[in-house]
């Protein structure tokens, strides 16, 4: 008996749990991917994102929870019956077949007649600009070409969802941007649905319609890139999605209004939801702090890196608070100068003082 639901989501996960021995890899994941949506799951290694992808593809089965694909319950369905394909990190191209043979594979095993495969294979190779390489051997291809063949192979029979398992991490850095462009372009043109796994936050922010941040098998936050970047709900999310200065502060209401004391200055807050009382941890992104002739506190420039269009300046306040500040366009402040720092109260990400930022786990 097939359970059928009238939902329009391409992928729906309900309460997915998975344990390996004593370790909990996935601790109750619920998420939905709409048709034509790009959902990016980011997280440090060991956060469970690869296991989650395997559960969607059917190579792993969850200990509990349900996998729905295109309105059909697929939890117990073997991988070869599921309407999804994976683009693997190591490409996983078949070495004994040529480019066209690899791309034709999903059609061949589905029983599509040889004559009918040809135009579909050509079309898929066209999408990834590999038409002219149809008869090359796999071991003569470059990494970027291999990844494009793997992509064509995953797209050739138009799956309901394409699972991308860190598709760019094995590529040379200079190829990544181009491949990401291609992935984005194809998604738009063909209306594809992606479940994209990566540990690279820039990749995630760039391609995701929505981003889910996984940590220790839990989804800490899921939402549009701007939202998870600008309004992180946990210190881990704030820390994982971009560079951030962590300062310790104190919840300090003044005159009936909430406020924060950090680095020897008092910042009144308006419209901030309930603040944790007592000591707090305050995150300030380097680009949200401005150097100027006036501001909240004074600090001394400790070091300065010049990048042409911007500078990265490290400053130290009288209270020994250290901050990294990105200035675009470049600031002229020199090492040893005293400067004023300013920031908007809304730029402060305030968490309980003991909130984990996970910085050791993904220190770069």
């Amino acid at each position, binding site marked *: 008996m097939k359970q059928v639901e009238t939902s329009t989501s391409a992928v729906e996960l309900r309460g997915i749990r998975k344990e390996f021995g004593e370790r909990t890899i996935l601790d109750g994941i619920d998420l939905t991917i709409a048709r034509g949506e790009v959902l990016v799951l980011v997280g440090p290694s060991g956060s469970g994102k690869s296991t989650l992808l395997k559960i969607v*593809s*059917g*190579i792993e089965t969850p200990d509990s929870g349900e996998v729905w694909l295109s309105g059909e319950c697929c939890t117990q369905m*073997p*991988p*070869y019956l599921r309407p*999804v*394909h*994976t683009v*693997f990190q*190591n490409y*996983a191209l*078949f*070495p*004994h077949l040529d480019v066209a043979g690899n791309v034709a*594979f*999903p059609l*061949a*095993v*589905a029983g599509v007649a040889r004559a009918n495969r040809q135009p579909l294979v050509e079309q898929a190779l066209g999408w990834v600009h590999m038409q002219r390489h149809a008869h090359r*051997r796999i*071991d003569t291809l470059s990494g970027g070409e291999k990844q494009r063949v793997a992509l064509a*192979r*995953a797209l050739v*029979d138009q799956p309901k969802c394409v699972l991308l398992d860190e598709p760019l991490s094995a590529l040379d850095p200079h190829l990544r941007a181009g491949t990401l462009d291609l992935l984005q372009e194809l998604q738009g043109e063909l209306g594809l649905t992606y479940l994209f796994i990566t540990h690279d936050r820039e990749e995630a922010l760039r391609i995701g319609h929505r981003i889910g941040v996984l940590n220790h098998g839990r989804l800490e936050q899921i939402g549009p890139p701007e939202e998870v970047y600008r309004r992180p709900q946990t210190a881990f999310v704030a820390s994982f999605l971009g560079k951030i200065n962590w300062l310790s502060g104190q919840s300090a209401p003044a005159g009936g209004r909430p406020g924060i004391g950090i680095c020897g200055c008092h910042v009144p807050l308006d419209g901030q939801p309930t603040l944790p009382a007592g000591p707090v941890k305050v995150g300030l992104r380097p680009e949200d702090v401005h150097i100027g002739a006036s501001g909240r506190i004074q600090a001394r420039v400790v070091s300065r890196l010049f990048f042409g269009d911007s500078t990265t300046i490290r400053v130290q306040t009288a209270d020994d608070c250290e901050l990294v500040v990105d200035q675009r366009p470049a600031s002229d402040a020199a090492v040893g100068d005293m400067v004023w720092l300013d920031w908007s109260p809304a730029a402060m990400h305030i968490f309980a003082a003991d909130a984990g930022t996970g910085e050791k786990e993904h220190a770069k």
Partner: protein
Amino acid sequence: MKSLTTRWLALPAVLYLTVLFLGPTSVVLAYSLLKRDIYGGVHPEFSGNAWRMATDSITLGILARTVLLATGVTAANLLLAYPCAAALARMSRERRALWMLILSFPMLTSLLLRTYGWLNLLPLAWRGTLPGVGLVLTCNYLPFMVLPLLKAYERADRSLVWAALDLGATPWQAFWRVTFPITLSGAVSGAALVFIPVSGEYLIPHFIGDGKVSVAGTLVMEWFDHRHWPYAAACAAWLAAVVLVPIGVSLVWKSRELSATK
């Protein structure tokens, strides 16, 4: 310069082959064309008699039986070794080492003892029959098939099977379309390693066959015993010719594969 040096490195092997293989083989061929000496050995006089005997229906029948036996044993070994190699390939390094030891353990005892052991194990009805001989040979040669297959399985990365399943192949399709073609060269090597010695086997057909299963190996042995050296030499030459076929096939295969990967 470099190619000259490396060519010299092949010299010991070339000498070895010339002195110990081509030499004796020529002697065997020469013996088959001489007259029989009544007390064994040959009489230095040309005779086509041995080859007339060696092309009669009895000799050809025995050769056909030998090819059938070697083919059957090779096929049975392929069927047994594939799942075995697949299981071994997925084990942890330590467990694999343990199982390889268990698998090759019988090889550490004498062939004669093992064969006598089989005489006790085998149902009486199987003794002196071709299937009985085939069974014992299959068991005896299994490691020679498993080892090259296991080596080939190392190339058939498990992620390739996952990819095949992910792309819609049933487990059976994944085997035929991915695992099998990738491991085929190992299967060819293993088949040659089994087929060639089995077609020349003497001891196991002699004991298990109980004198009722005549194959090329026993034929050669018996006629040397019966002091008909020219006929025995002609049979030995036949056997060499039979063995050359699989060697040729696997050589062509290997060279094709080598040039393809270049």
